[in-house]
């Protein structure tokens, strides 16, 4: 019984330890996998931005482009043609690019692969203002007033030979590739794996969970921020911000500076998530994997461990019973025999059986010794009982008669025998009390 209890306790304890260690190990493994996946997405998106900026930076170098930026309509026909060729080349070599244009220093589009853009002003946009300051710029995602779809802008300064910023080379791109990159993460590291791309304000740029999340803030924006974004036509010309997702857990990923693990629940599914900051922008990519997915292995292990533990306990019980039976049975037999011996009730057959106990263990040896001793006692008792009968018979009657005669034929005895009657007869009566 004690061994069984110990076996059960050990089995439960070891199974629990094994499960928790397995679970912890699987969590660590999941973290590594979702981090690797998030890093992959982050790298791809950053490269995508870098490629566009690099293409624009190259496109801003040719003299024709500089002349067009400086002169606008005053630039030569050959400069216009050469510059347009450069812009077209950029457009064709970079997927998702919808428009590439040159802006003069006043913010007016003086050349663009989309003719309708020429002559429009873009001086209010940050892609113009930042580039004019000499910076390469990546905008946030906004609803394009041209396509009315989510777009983003890349821009670089155009410098003349005096290294003076004379204009801006700007490209507008769709989110097709970015969306494809995020969508490709769905289920990649495990069943139910999802991804969400957030901009610096927590607006959803792309995600694998809900189509209706595009451009919606994860949590309500501050009044000033919202007003600024509305003014910047982030959500197009609607003039209003879409309702927030009110997902505070997801919102914890906004603006992280380093990879950060957090727990996230969406539609009842608990995720282990990792927020990965992008390098080229202030965006964050969230890679998430359901607990059930990476814990399934731990649960399988637990199931197997429980089965193994139950089998082990069963074996331990059986072994314990067998051993106890092997040990206790001979002991019980010996104890019974000692009790019978104590009350002189142990039979010759029982003692003989004990004396012939097989096996070589200590209990068997003890049984054999006791059996032999018991046999000796029993046989001695039997012998003694038979001797009583013999002893009562062994009286030498002839000798008896002779010895009696020697005494009774003496003078003293003869006299005593005569007097004994007189002595008894003369005894005074007992005085009254």
């Amino acid at each position, binding site marked *: 019984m004690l061994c069984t209890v110990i076996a059960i306790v050990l089995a439960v304890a070891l199974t629990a330890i094994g499960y928790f260690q397995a679970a912890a190990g699987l969590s660590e493994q999941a973290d590594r996998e979702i981090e690797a996946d998030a890093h992959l997405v982050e790298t791809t998106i950053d490269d995508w931005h870098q490629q566009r900026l690099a293409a624009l930076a190259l496109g801003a170098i040719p003299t024709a482009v500089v002349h067009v930026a400086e002169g606008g309509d005053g630039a030569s026909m050959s400069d216009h043609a050469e510059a347009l060729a450069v812009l077209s080349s950029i457009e064709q070599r970079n997927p998702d690019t919808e428009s590439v244009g040159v802006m003069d220093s006043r913010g007016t589009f003086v050349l663009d692969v989309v003719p309708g853009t020429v002559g429009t002003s873009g001086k209010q946009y940050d892609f113009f203002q930042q580039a004019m300051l000499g910076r390469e710029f990546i905008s946030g995602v906004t609803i394009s007033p041209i396509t009315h779809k989510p777009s983003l802008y890349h821009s670089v300064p155009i410098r003349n030979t005096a290294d003076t910023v004379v204009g801006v080379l700007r490209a507008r791109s769709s989110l097709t590739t970015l969306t494809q990159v995020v969508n490709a993460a769905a289920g990649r590291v495990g069943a139910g794996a999802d991804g969400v791309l957030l901009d610096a304000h927590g607006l959803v740029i792309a995600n694998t969970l809900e189509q209706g999340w595009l451009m919606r803030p994860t949590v309500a924006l501050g009044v000033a921020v919202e007003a600024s974004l509305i003014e910047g036509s982030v959500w197009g010309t609607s003039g209003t911000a879409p309702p927030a997702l009110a997902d505070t857990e997801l919102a914890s990923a906004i603006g992280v500076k380093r990879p950060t693990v957090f727990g996230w629940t969406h539609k009842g599914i608990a995720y282990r998530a990792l927020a990965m900051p992008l390098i080229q922008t202030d965006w964050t990519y969230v890679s998430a994997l359901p607990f059930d997915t990476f814990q399934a292995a731990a649960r399988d292990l637990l199931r197997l461990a429980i089965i193994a533990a139950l089998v082990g306990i069963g074996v331990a019980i059986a072994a314990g019973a067998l051993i106890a039976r092997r040990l206790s049975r001979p002991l019980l037999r010996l104890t019974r025999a000692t009790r019978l011996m104590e009350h002189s009730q142990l039979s010759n057959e029982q003692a003989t059986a004990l004396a012939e106990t097989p096996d070589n263990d200590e209990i068997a040896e003890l049984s054999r010794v006791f059996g032999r001793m018991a046999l000796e006692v029993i046989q001695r008792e039997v012998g003694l009982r038979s001797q009583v009968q013999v002893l009562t018979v062994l009286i030498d009657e002839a000798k008896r008669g002779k010895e009696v005669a020697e005494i009774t034929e003496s003078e003293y005895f003869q006299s005593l*025998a005569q007097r*004994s009657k007189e002595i008894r007869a003369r005894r005074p009566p007992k005085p009254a009390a």
Partner: protein
Amino acid sequence: MSKIISVHSFRGGTGKSNTTANLAALFASAGLRVGVIDTDIQSPGIHVLFGLDADKVEPSLNDYLWGKCSIAQAAHDVTANLGVPISGKVFLVPSSIRAGEIARVLREGYDVGLLNDGVNDLVTDLNLDIALIDTHPGMNEETLLSISISDALVIILRPDMQDYQGTAVTVDVARKLEVPTMVLMVNKVPAVYNTADVRARVEDAYKCEVAAALPHSDELMALASSGIFALRYPNNPLTAGLKTLVARLLQ
């Protein structure tokens, strides 16, 4: 009528003195006045069972036999030494334990007729109901006299080859002295024997009633004559056997 009972055995070591002392205690427990005379002058010992110190064993029977005192003066009231409240009385006339006096007896002998007178006087002087004579083992003039003056004789034997022959002689001699009551007591019967069977076989062998067959007792051995067994172990089977003997002797 007072009764004189001799307790005798052919050989020593049969438990004669122990039996005599226990019989005396049981008689006294029944309210009787009992006198015990230790006539085993050569090897006295019954005084130990009654808690009589060696330096208090005087005057003794020896003093009476040499005319130094009356028998009643040699009688010691040992009732209080029994250790339990007793409704009767026990008086002990011990034999001297002084080596010189024992040697004198062996050398000079004594008038055995005085023993007879002494027992009678003791009965009269102390108003005894029972006088128990603890005899010396074997057949000699003193033991023959004790048997001849006794109303009842208890011959003790052990289930031992050394006892059977001599007991047969004693039984025959006692019959010729016409002792009114003679019973055997088989003592120290080993536990492996059936006492009832032993009793029947001894009765058949001697054609004499066996009043009791007492089992060997480790408790008696352990008591080592430091007290009266029947008073110390009133519920012991050995005590029950002694009570049976007492009842038989009182018939």
